[in-house]
């Protein structure tokens, strides 16, 4: 009885892994392969696995000149990547500075209007982009903020701050308060306790939400498109600028995707070890 259910579980698990890998990772592999193909090779009825890879897509992006049926077009993809990096990093940094103390406050203190403030910050996410984008564009232009990193970083806070705040709040609530109390009783100030105890113990949550915020800022399309000119445009807009009236250069876009994923993937690999910690284990008797 036991062995058959074990085999059943094993088969089930294997199928699960298979399905997940196929569904999520096959397209990634495909995109990766496409980045080494020319458009002719891609747009073939029967897809081929064996082909001679070409670097022309990557070279075009790195050099900044792509060949289209209509002639040679200038693109600034590498600049786009840099922009994305600047925008996303600054946004996440600002969000961390503003959001972590606030998340802590909501988790630990019951203060008047506290839940209202928390909900209000959350409510900024309710505003659909298209609702505010035209007025924003208007005001930014009036204030001369059009085309500035600063303005976009601020707008991105509306996306990242509620997310980080509510996720990290949950993690702070799971950190045992007594550990913090003990540290205070040892003679340390509130700030030291916050910095050396609370934050390290909430690290998995902070790591996970920082990564997610970075990704969401990186992938944002609508705001960047309308609120910035080409000099600060991130990759999302940049990638779609390859599309001309005559053709969609899939190989080029695929190469663009691969290039744009590299910074984010690097960040994920760095953060990954923080994602695996469950620090509350064993230090506090439940």
């Amino acid at each position, binding site marked *: 009885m036991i062995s058959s259910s074990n085999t059943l579980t094993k088969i089930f698990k294997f199928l699960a892994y298979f399905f997940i890998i196929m569904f999520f990772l096959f397209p990634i592999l495909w995109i990766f392969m496409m980045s080494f193909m020319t458009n002719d090779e891609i747009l073939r009825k029967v897809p081929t696995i064996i082909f001679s890879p070409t670097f022309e897509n990557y070279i075009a992006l790195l050099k900044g000149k792509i060949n289209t049926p209509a002639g040679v077009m200038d693109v600034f993809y590498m600049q786009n990547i840099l922009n994305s990096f600047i925008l996303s990093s600054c946004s996440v940094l600002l969000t961390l500075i503003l959001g972590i103390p606030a998340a802590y406050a909501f988790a630990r203190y019951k203060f008047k209007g506290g839940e209202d403030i928390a909900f209000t910050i959350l409510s900024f996410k309710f505003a659909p982009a298209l609702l505010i984008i035209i007025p924003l564009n208007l005001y930014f232009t009036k204030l001369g903020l059009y085309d500035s990193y600063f303005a976009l970083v601020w707008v991105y806070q509306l996306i990242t701050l509620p997310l980080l705040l509510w996720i990290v709040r949950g993690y702070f609530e799971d950190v045992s308060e007594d550990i913090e109390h003990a540290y205070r*009783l040892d*003679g340390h100030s509130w700030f*030291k306790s916050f910095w050396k105890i609370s934050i390290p113990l909430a690290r998995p949550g902070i790591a996970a939400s920082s990564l997610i915020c970075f990704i969401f800022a990186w992938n944002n399309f609508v705001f960047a498109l309308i609120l910035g000119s080409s000099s600060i445009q991130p990759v999302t807009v940049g990638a779609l600028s390859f599309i001309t009236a005559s053709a969609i250069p899939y190989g080029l876009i695929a190469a663009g995707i691969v290039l744009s994923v590299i910074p984010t993937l690097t960040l994920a690999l760095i953060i990954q070890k923080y994602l695996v910690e469950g620090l509350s284990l064993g230090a506090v008797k439940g």
Partner: protein
Amino acid sequence: MSYLEIKNINKRFKDDIVFDDVSLSVNKGEFFVVFGPSGSGKTVLLRLLSGIMSQDSGQIFMDGVCIDDLDPNERDISMAFQNFALYPHMDAFENIASPLIAQKTSPDEIKKRVQEVAELLKIDHVLSHKPKELSNGQKQRTSLARSLVVRPSVVLLDDPLRNVDAKIRYEMRLELPKVLKEFNTTVIYVTQDYKEAMALGERVGVLANSNFTDVDHPTHVYKKPNNITSAKLFGDPTINVLNASNISSGDLSTITASKITIESNNPNLKNQRDLFLGIRPEDIQISNQAHEGAIKVELRAKTPLNLRTVYLLRFEDGVEVLASASEEESLLIDDQKDFYIRFDNSNLNFFDQSESLIQ
């Protein structure tokens, strides 16, 4: 002289009144035990003293100075938590060193002091372990070490020996007071075990019903508890409490409880008609012989324990009491024969209708 003083403390959580006008005075260097059942507020008391929690009203004084406005890190008070509260991301050494680091002690001095207190508590061999690698007993002692390493003026110990194996518990019951006496620390020690209270405390405060019902030397609390609640908490098996009625003529009172009749000259008993009689199981003597003044009882159940045997006995009118006899004594009792009990009147206590002790 009074070193730690709480005056008229009130604390409640929603509808639950934890402290109702509680006051207490602890002397410098005293080993004071706070004893009470779970939920009685012992831990809350410690949290109020340490500054982690604030009282609704009332004041706390240390060495004559009101410390209510001081943050936990500003009070010269240490605490060992019941659930250890060790820092999971630091090893035992760093955990213990933490208070010294807060005081900006030099690294050499830190090493020396941590080593010192770790040896005292027999955890010097696990100093490099992280909390999750320590046994419960080791965690408890690490937590203890952390609270003692700075030689604070006041140390709050929240049931520190509860999660420790028996052997170490007995050892620590001897060691701990010695160590603390050496440091001349004022200790507030919380426990749920009355035997521990009796073994350790110079004075015991029994916390029940939102206040201290007794604050006295443990033997005195045991002998003359201020109310039935204290009486029941202090003693195992629990004290027998019987309903009794009293007829007084002049100074002489005749109290009847079930088949027991007692005469007393105590003037305080005069005006009490209905009261309670308290008699401890260990004060009841069992015999198979009907000695003078013995009362016949029926054996209902017998529970042999480690060093004594507990008997459940029933009077002819159905009232039941517990009696306990030592191992040797129980060997002399034949369960098949008749049972008779006797007791010494001086070991009895009377409580009035409001459950308070009649002196």
